[in-house]
């Protein structure tokens, strides 16, 4: 039994588990910013008075939401990079990393958009009517009245999207990024006898990242709840 743990511990010297997790955290960070920006623009488009913008937003969300993330990432790497030869960085690994961030951001922006839209729906009709009554147009009333309340109402779904994004960074393995799921695969292939311990390490690592995010979301959604 003790030799099992010794075998397992020796794996950490050959494989940098923390470095791999750090890659996942970086992917999460950059993709979260990207999808938040894109998602907010999409949400604004979907509630705007301009019909073409609404259609564009709805089309984007419906198509991206129904496409597997794996296809998006494989498409970017095999299609856009390999066939169209668009390089995002001269560094080989950095290039894949950036493609993975873009793919993750494109995919999760659709969910961020829906989260914000569900937040917009929590804002009472009277707020929008009052904004219009004092003469605010679409953009001013969206910026000053609706979105500040909608974002606070959207904390829970946004947090869920962030949790999903964190877990989905493992799919970056399909875009040749060396992150934790790819590392786990080589660890198990190298030492198949300690497979359970390796799996539990990675799984618990994710539990440790995901659970605090969930708790933080719950806390924030209560703390910033709009009192009505």
């Amino acid at each position: 039994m003790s030799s099992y743990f010794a075998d397992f511990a020796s794996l950490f010297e050959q494989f940098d588990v923390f470095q791999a997790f750090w890659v996942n955290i970086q992917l999460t960070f950059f993709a979260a910013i990207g999808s938040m920006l894109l998602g907010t623009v999409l949400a604004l488009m979907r509630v705007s008075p301009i019909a073409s913008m609404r259609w564009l937003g709805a089309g984007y969300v419906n198509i991206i939401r129904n496409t597997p993330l794996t296809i998006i990432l494989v498409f970017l790497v095999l299609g856009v990079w390999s066939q169209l030869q668009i390089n995002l960085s001269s560094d080989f690994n950095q290039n894949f990393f950036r493609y993975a961030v873009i793919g993750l951001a494109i995919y999760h922006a659709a969910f961020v958009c829906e989260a914000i839209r569900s937040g917009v729906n929590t804002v009472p009709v009277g707020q929008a009517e009052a904004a219009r009554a004092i003469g605010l147009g679409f953009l001013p009333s969206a910026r000053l009245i609706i979105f500040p309340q909608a974002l606070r109402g959207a904390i829970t779904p946004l947090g869920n999207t962030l949790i999903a994004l964190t877990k989905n960074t493992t799919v970056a393995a399909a875009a040749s990024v060396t992150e934790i799921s790819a590392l786990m695969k080589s660890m198990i292939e190298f030492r198949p006898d300690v497979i359970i311990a390796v799996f539990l390490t990675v799984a618990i690592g994710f539990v440790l990242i995901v659970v605090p995010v969930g708790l933080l979301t719950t806390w924030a959604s209560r703390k910033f709840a709009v009192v009505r």
Partner: protein
Amino acid sequence: MSSKAQNVLFDVQGPRGRLLTLIFNIVGVLLVAALAWVVLGKLADQGQLQAEKWTQLFTARSWNNFFLPGILQTLRAAGLAVVLSVIFGLIFGLGRLSQLTIVRGVSTVVVEFFRAVPVLVMMIFFYLGIGRTGLVPPSETPFWAVVLGLMLYNGAVIAELIRSGVHSLPRGQREAGLVVGMTESQVLRAILLPQALTAMLPSLVSQFVVILKDTALGYIITYPELLASARRLGSGDGNILQTLLMAAVVFVVINFALTSLAQWLSSFLSYRTAGRTKPTTAPAPAAVK
């Protein structure tokens, strides 16, 4: 998704507003056209607009040898995963509602654990783990890895759906059952669960979309599903961009049909239960995928 709340954001427009809208519409169309021009230009530069690269997508050879077998494998994995995850979800969903603290505790740990672990990590574990047990022939290992990974994750999500479905029923339903002399478990089986299951059907169908999409993860562990066959077809003939696009279209069409079914169910079933049938616009934690 009340469109009411959105339409109040702006008034019926006057002449100036209509003019602005028109201008923005034109700008929007021009932007899209410019984007399309850049993309098409880039495609043409790399010779991706040659007719045969696209017409090849619609030949009998492509469909008989690549797309249809791929779709079949995708549906096979998704179908079994749907059945198994519903069973898994029922067992642990009821476990979380149990009167026994220990059953409740175990179910909670199981559900929370499998919801937090990425599906791909589970798939890789089973892919490399099942082979060592020798329970299934090596050629079937990726299939079972995909099915088991999907079952554990989506089963846990469905367990949560069942629990929240029961909790979202009006309190009077349970109280009325107790008043007429039923026990807690009779109330659960005869009154709460049927209504909760009806109420959660739309969310359940949305979860099937997640299952179908996630079968594409099987690509990473060499399961020959749609994405993998599209890639094989494309790398053989040098039109991977086009074949992947076709695979995406197939996924979007199937999933869009499922999503529409969920929306229709939601309005159809709302008369048949005391619970809320609206699918969670904000998916249950981690159900986003």
